[in-house]
């Protein structure tokens, strides 16, 4: 699993590649929280274009970050989830809490 974190003004963009299971959950949680706790980030974009698998450990990281972002009155977005990943996101109900878009460009255009 690889991840790339980029801060653009008060928005953190996280691009994840690989399988979101318990192996990466801790690392992902720590890396994102370090940025969020720096108080300069209030919005979070998770790019899942290159995520090939997600289970409840990966969902836990997303849901936990959603709670944090909500507490900061920020917005959170998920972009580029594949059909198989989207199916799990929808099954968990995450799509009712977090807006899902096809690409990063779609968010810029909002």
């Amino acid at each position, binding site marked *: 699993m690889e991840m790339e974190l980029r801060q653009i003004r008060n928005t953190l963009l996280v691009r994840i590649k690989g399988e979101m299971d318990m*192996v990466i959950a801790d690392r992902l949680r720590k890396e994102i929280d370090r940025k969020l706790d720096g108080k300069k980030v209030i919005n979070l974009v998770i790019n899942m274009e290159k995520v090939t698998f997600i*289970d*409840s*450990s990966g*969902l*836990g990281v997303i849901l936990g970050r959603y709670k944090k972002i909500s507490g900061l009155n920020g917005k959170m977005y998920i972009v580029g989830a594949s059909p198989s990943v989207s199916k799990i996101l929808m*099954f968990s109900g995450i799509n009712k809490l977090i807006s899902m878009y096809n690409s990063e460009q779609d968010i810029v255009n909002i």
Partner: protein
Amino acid sequence: MNMKNYVRFEFPSTPENVSFARSCVAAFATQIDCNLEELEEIKLVVSEAVTNCIIHGYENKPHGKIIVLATILDNHSMEIMIEDYGKGITDIKQAMEANFSTDPARTGLGFTFMKSFMDDLDVQSQPGIGTSVKLTRCFLTKDKEALA
């Protein structure tokens, strides 16, 4: 044709083995008549069951033993047993409730996924002895039946 076949393997309770276990069972499952979406579902439920063994059964300690036994029952059905010798579950009914977790940082969706994506889920557990999860799924849908 009855093509009963099985694979059995054991490994220590380290997080890296979750990916190994789900890929291994999914590779074995290609021997039966199931599609890519169904293989993804097999990967998910194995991932959840093995993650439970590591996080709850062995409380993240890396030296616990996990056994996986996957059996092809016929052309369309498969049974997967996942066992640990860890802490065990005190209240199985509560553990299987959606969104319940003994760990507040977790989603409590593991058993929900197993119940939803498999036809049958049987959990046997004894505190201090261990837990055994049996997952069964028949991949013969009405569409496939019509094509057969």
